[in-house]
């Protein structure tokens, strides 16, 4: 029985996030569409794309976890036959699915866009994949903080830090010789440093989400 309730709670959260997922995908499609117009429009499209990924990452956690706790609708959910650990597991899975739905579609569509549109250099692919994984990395950090703390200061600080880090990460990635030399080239060049960075990004995702669940499973007081 608890398993099916968890599934229902996960579906409930995905349903609640449906407009956010649709809105993000519309913004992604629009950004790709306008990116083909000219170089200037490519920049505008890139900003729109990056913004939609950031907003998606923040809003999934804000609406699904933080707001549910602040407006006390989590008391309603916790009154259902579910343990507190199961509640947090459902929250985590639902947030992951909601984010990954939009993120995954954006990733696949954009990769196809780069590969299929002649004007788009395939050399952009490693940088793009690294950036997408960094959005996932930042989302996981913010989700973990949202699950672990009730503090508005912590959640606010995490939003600022993760958003600021995107600029630094882009500068860092752009300056990697393998990226810098091949960004406008016709072939995607993958190097060990790129794989190492990818590994780091995914390792952070696994670590922070695992840590958040571990801490929640050891918590005894929830209100």
């Amino acid at each position, binding site marked *: 029985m608890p398993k099916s309730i968890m599934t229902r709670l996960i579906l409930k959260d995905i349903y*609640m996030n449906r407009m956010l997922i649709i809105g993000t995908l519309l913004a992604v499609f629009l950004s790709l569409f306008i990116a083909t117009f000219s170089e200037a429009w490519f920049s505008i499209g890139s900003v729109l794309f990056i913004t939609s990924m950031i907003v998606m990452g923040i809003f999934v956690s804000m609406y699904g976890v933080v707001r549910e706790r602040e407006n006390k609708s989590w008391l309603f959910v916790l009154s259902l036959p579910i343990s507190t650990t199961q509640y947090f597991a459902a929250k985590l899975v639902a947030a992951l699915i909601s984010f990954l739905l939009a993120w995954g579609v954006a990733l696949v569509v954009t990769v196809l866009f780069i590969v299929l549109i002649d004007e788009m250099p395939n050399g952009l692919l490693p940088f793009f994949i690294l950036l997408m994984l960094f959005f996932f990395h930042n989302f996981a950090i913010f989700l973990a903080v949202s699950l672990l703390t009730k503090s508005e200061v912590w959640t606010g600080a995490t939003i600022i830090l993760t958003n600021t880090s995107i600029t630094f990460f882009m500068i860092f990635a752009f300056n990697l010789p393998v990226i810098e030399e091949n960004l406008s080239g016709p072939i995607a060049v993958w190097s060990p440093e790129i794989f190492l960075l990818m590994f780091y990004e995914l390792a952070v995702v696994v670590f922070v989400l695992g840590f958040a669940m571990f801490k929640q499973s050891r918590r005894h007081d929830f209100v």
Partner: protein
Amino acid sequence: MTTLAIQLDNVCKQFPFFALQDICLRLEEGQIMGFVGPNGAGKSTTIRILMGLLRQASGEVKVLGLPMPQQQTLAKQQIGYVTDDMALFGNASLAWHIELVRSIYPDWDDAYAKTLLDRFYLNPQQMIKGLSHGERIKALLLLVLARRPRLLILDEPTSGLDPVARHEVLAELMDVLRDDDRSILFSSHNTVDVEQISDCITFIDRGRIIQSSDKESFLEGWRRLKLDVPDGAGLPHFEEAIEVSTAGKIATVTTNAYTPGLQTRYAQAGITVHEVQRMTLEEVFVANVMYSRKERS
């Protein structure tokens, strides 16, 4: 043997500025307990321990025979919990919430849910964010009552309701009580509501249970005596008299263990008993809290 819906034994829980101390509480199946205390007395903390949302530092908690918080998943299948600060999802309709809860509880009673929708004058298609506080509480009650729980835990459910909504909610609870197997723990600081529906009452203050008994014992035991003390006659001290106030020759004595024998003893001491007043539950509550605080200090 009587089955207990709620059993708390020596439950303690510490916070930086508050502590629940040695809470012992028993609610038999089929009973309604009014859980009364001033703001910050520990009512919600006790209830949250019962629901497994807080873990007791020590002591034993059983709900419907299941140890908490270990068996909370199983216990919550048979508990309906509503608190005045509990919220539903603002961007979803009441019908959506009904569907969610119905899919979780196999005993969901569709016909009863429809009856409650009519009685509470709720529109299932309305979004929750458009409901008033009273309508929100009624929606929450509908969602717990229609799943036919064995135990209802209601934490200040009538707080902030207008008199009509309060009457409707209490009337529905009275109706629920026709089922002898259903138990209710009803927390409130509104003694009028508690007096109306409870058959036993527990007072809590500053993290301690100060008295727990059936309603009739409270109302029978607590009395206020108006005495005329003649000049030169001292007012004797009887153990049952827990509070005495005097104004000239008139003395007012409050007792928590009234028997007609008390009147006789005052008369034998040369004191005229003018009046023996019954006390309302609110007066009993206030006197009880003040007496307990005096005793503790």
